[in-house]
């Protein structure tokens, strides 16, 4: 517990985290510490628990019946797995971007304003500012500033994904969770989103799940390699990629399995 008190705010640390889907032990004894304002990539083969782990951090797994979480996830001084934590409040602080850009079938403006609005912001002027500020932050403002009242579903896949990032930023989170944000995008859109993620590092702690090794190598400061529900290896991205400790890590990075 001493450790907890000394870590800075919004630094994330998991402590013997276990997660079960019914009887299936999906996460086994995860102990990770995420640095503030850094990008950490979670890599590993399909079904190894990366997404499950990501979704324990904003308690999205609570929505699935029959799941059980044990251990602790400390964000700042709070253990967010504690039942006294309100997941609604938590998710304001821990934003999430999904694999498929899930834009609401509303206007671009309404998509961004949705978060602030449900959190009580009614002032039109403030909302206007929030919309512009976050579209700028997501490098989308110049492309859509003349069509804010048009449906967001008309945007391209890459624009939609940047819009969902802007929408997440509008709730002023401290931590951004990204679940394969570029896997459904073409290379050019992917490059734009990657560039965006790197600029966001200045203000946010980012944890990103990716199946794209090059992407992890390009953008992440730290990389965690998941295998069968465990963290096999964790460290600086450069070390993991150039000099992994375990042969499994080496083989996975080289594309021998996955």
């Amino acid at each position, binding site marked *: 517990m001493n450790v907890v008190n000394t870590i800075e705010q919004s630094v994330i640390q998991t402590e013997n985290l276990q997660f079960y889907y019914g009887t299936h032990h999906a996460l086994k004894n995860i102990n990770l510490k995420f640095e503030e304002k850094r990008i950490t990539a979670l890599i590993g083969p399909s079904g190894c628990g990366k997404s499950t782990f990501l979704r324990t951090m904003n308690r999205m797994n609570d929505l699935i019946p029959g799941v059980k979480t044990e251990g602790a996830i400390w964000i700042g001084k709070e253990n967010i797995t504690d039942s006294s934590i309100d997941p609604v409040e938590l998710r304001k602080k821990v*934003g999430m971007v999904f694999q498929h850009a899930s834009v609401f079938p509303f206007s671009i403006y309404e998509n961004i304003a949705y978060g602030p609005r449900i959190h009580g912001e009614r002032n039109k002027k403030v909302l206007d500012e929030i919309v512009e500020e976050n579209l700028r932050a997501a490098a989308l403002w110049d492309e859509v500033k003349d069509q804010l009242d048009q449906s967001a579903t008309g945007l391209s896949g890459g624009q939609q994904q940047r819009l969902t990032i802007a929408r997440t930023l509008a709730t002023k989170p401290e931590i951004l969770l990204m679940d394969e944000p570029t896997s459904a995008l073409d290379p050019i859109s992917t490059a734009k989103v990657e560039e965006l993620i790197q600029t966001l590092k200045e203000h946010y702690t980012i944890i990103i799940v990716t199946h794209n090794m090059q992407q992890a190598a390009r953008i992440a400061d730290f990389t965690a390699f998941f295998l069968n529900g465990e963290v096999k290896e964790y460290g600086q991205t450069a070390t993991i990629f150039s000099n992994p400790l375990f042969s499994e890590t080496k083989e996975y990075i080289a594309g021998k399995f996955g």
Partner: protein
Amino acid sequence: MHKELSQKSDYNLQVSPISKGEYMMAKMIKETEHPLYRKSNKMRMERFGKGLTFLSVALAAAITAAILFLVFSKGLSTFIMNDGSVKDFFTGTTWNPAEVNSLGKPIIGALPFLVGSLAVTGISALLSAPLAIGAAIFMSEIAPKTGKRIMQPVIELLVGIPSVVYGFIGLTVVVPFLRDLFPGSGFGIAAGTIVLSVMILPTVTSLALDAIQAVPRSLREASLALGSTRWQMICEVVLKTAKPGLMMAVIFGMARAFGEALAVQMVIGNAAVIPHSLFEPASTLTSILTMGMGYTVMGQIENNALWSLALVLLLMSLFFTITVRMIGKGKSS
């Protein structure tokens, strides 16, 4: 060898040598007889099936066209053959097609029935829509397990109950209940509305449920991940996204209410006047039609006037169908 053969052929035509052109011809004929060129049994079945389904479609289309033609020609003959006034039809308040007025025109004021039909349809939609959408939300969002296991079968059962049963229940329960609570006989728009809204409730509920369940899970998750409560997610994302589908559900219910004859006729009182309150006897287009059709003779003005009412019903149902289609189109684009 060749020479020998050609010599022989002089005597026997069957083995006569053939020119190159003839040979090519023979080859071509043979090629068209290749199994791939022959019509197989399967091919014949294919054509037969095509013909059969086309016939079904053609028959259905022909019947529809015939019905439309009959209703239009009969319905319009009130105004063309019997010199009825269209203005009287839509604004007149007296219905007595057998008599003529001072201008020598038949008295065919259908306004009371139009008002009756629109009133029962509109009010029953207003009553059942919130209930149906509420029930659909409960079944889809609040208690999906109970919804699927208990409510859905119950609702499907309710859809299948014949309208005469609804009418009978209305007559035995709703009418006496209204008679005790309000002045009057209990028959009227209110009774018709209550019966109809209960009757269309299951239809609207199951269609609304479909619309709500069609909202992608990813949108729900996106909303929750932005820190919305479940209730905010339902109101702001699910219902907003499902809005076209919900409107379609309500319009389907209205179409059913507008066209319902039996159940309404049993409880509305069937007075051909515009009622002053919801608790006075009134009538609808359908109730006048079912009441009157047994007592008129084909080709006479009384009968033609009923066809005009049928035409209005048909046009209204067409209107409902087109509206639903337009909403559906808007949704998909």
